[in-house]
């Protein structure tokens, strides 16, 4: 399988340093070799996405987006992505602690492709992150972007 996997970049929008490191560790364990861009808040994410639109950065093939971010929050980032013609086909996976029904509905209404509640236990968290990467990078057939 790994042979057919294209080199897809992943954009990880996450404000918790711990979660970033644990997520990267889970990705490393999968050994899929995606390069990861990290945005620590909504503003950084929007900046990066504008670079992508201007062609100054490679278009990511998957975006992992936290909902609760300092300043510009995940909903706003999601709204921006889904409103831009060159970005809106990129699969966006919401990865958050919120179980709130309103948040879930809003995200799907805005066109989120998946909504995942971060497991609180370490083992489940690692499993979930690994599964996300395997599913969206290996199992899922993404649209051609960029």
């Amino acid at each position, binding site marked *: 399988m790994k042979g057919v996997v294209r080199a897809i970049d992943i954009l990880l929008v996450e404000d*918790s340093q*711990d*979660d970033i*490191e*644990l997520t990267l*560790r889970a990705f490393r364990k999968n050994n899929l070799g995606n390069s990861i861009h990290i945005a620590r808040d909504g503003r950084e994410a929007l900046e990066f996405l504008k670079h992508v639109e201007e062609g100054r950065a490679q278009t990511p093939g998957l975006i992992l987006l936290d909902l609760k971010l300092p300043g510009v929050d995940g909903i706003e980032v999601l709204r921006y992505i889904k409103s831009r013609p060159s970005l809106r086909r990129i699969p966006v996976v919401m990865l958050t*602690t919120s*179980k709130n029904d309103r948040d879930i509905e809003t995200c799907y209404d805005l066109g989120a492709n998946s909504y995942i509640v971060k497991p*609180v*236990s*370490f083992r489940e*968290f*690692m499993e979930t992150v690994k599964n996300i990467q395997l599913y969206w990078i290996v199992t899922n057939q993404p649209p051609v972007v960029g």
Partner: protein
Amino acid sequence: MSLRDLGIGTKLILAITVVIVGISSAGSVVIYTYQKRSLDEQILERSRTVAELLIQIEDHRLISRVAEEFNKVTGYTLKQTSLEPVNPRNMPDEFEAMVMRNFRENGETEYYAVVTSEDGRRYFRYMKALRTKENCISCHPGYEVGELRGSISVVAPYDTITAAMKRNTLSVLIILQILAISTIGVLYILSRKIVSEPLNRLIREMEGSAREIQRGEEVRDIPVSSRDEIGRLATAFNNLRRSLSESFRRKNEAIESFVYSISHDLKAPLRSIEGFSIALMEDYGDRLNSEGRHYINRIVSSARKMGVLIDELLEYSRIGRINLQRGDVSTSEVVELVLEDNLYEINRRGAEVKVAENMPVLKNVEKQRIYQIFSNLISNALKYNKSSTPEIEVGCMDQGDRYLFYVKDNGIGFDMRYHDKIFEIFQRLHREDEYSGTGVGLAIVKKIVETYGGRIWAESEPGKGSTFYFTLPKEAEV
């Protein structure tokens, strides 16, 4: 029960009864007094009239005939009498003689009194003085004009006359009382219809509503069927209820979101502690000696334990506050489920579990909570057990409106001194390394049982096993 505790309708009726009985009794006394007085006056008037009439008659024989006729018609006794009678028929009796002597001495012309005679009967007695007139002297020489010659005496049978009056008064009294009682009866029915029943219905609605509010459920308005005070009370209650349940709902939401964020905010760092410790072990474990690796394991297990504690605390805080799905729950199915979930441990320990045949179905309960009760008690019975073949017995007794359940084991037991302590949250009787646990299980069981209005207790002796008893209503209130 004091007067104060009676219903409003009953109080009202009591007050009305007292007033009506009072009024009718007082009325009867007034009627009796008035009738008696007018009767007395009537007797006096009749006696006086006939006496004065007789005085006018000069013919003695005519007097006797008039007297006879009068006596026949009225039942009175009318006669002439004299202190020195010519005719022995006119001989005065004791009373007449006494009165006439007084007439002679003080010059009075009239006297009357009610006198009790020797036979015990009462008589109204009237006497009119008969004084010598000028035209008498021709027939009765030897008298001076104005000198007392004799008297007209009227004797009326007082008892007989008043008996009729008493009978009349009594019948009036009886009619009054019958009227009073039927009035009270009608008022009683009306007060039930108008006051007690609507009020009681309102109270029942309010109580039901209060229970629903207490449980934080969606509450409907209680019906307002009239615009009188009761209807206004219902409206006022609805308004109060709406604002109360709104604030309760907000408070409950605030608690729930607080509890949720606490559990998440506390557990996120725990995930990091556990995660980085595991990463450390995986990446650098081979460069640490066994002591170093031991420390990492301690960090990981502490982080996990804290995670469990937070979960249990979260669970404990939700009992009675968060409503789970309710319905009929078969306790025998629940116990079956608990045994399946503990199958590994039961087989490993070679435990023998006996479940009574008569395990009942509970109505309107939350299955998950009933599961938690049996699961905690049965796993405790397995855990605190050193016997080579642990024996567990689960049973039930019918106690009318409730069931008494028990979970009995042949485990290590405990000293009854610590009976209350074992049900307290975070209280344990054993060291962590003897028997693992957080000290929340029995506290959760107790809270669930008490939320359903039941009771839990245990009987035990060190080394002789324990029996945990708890009661649950057959049908839980909502």
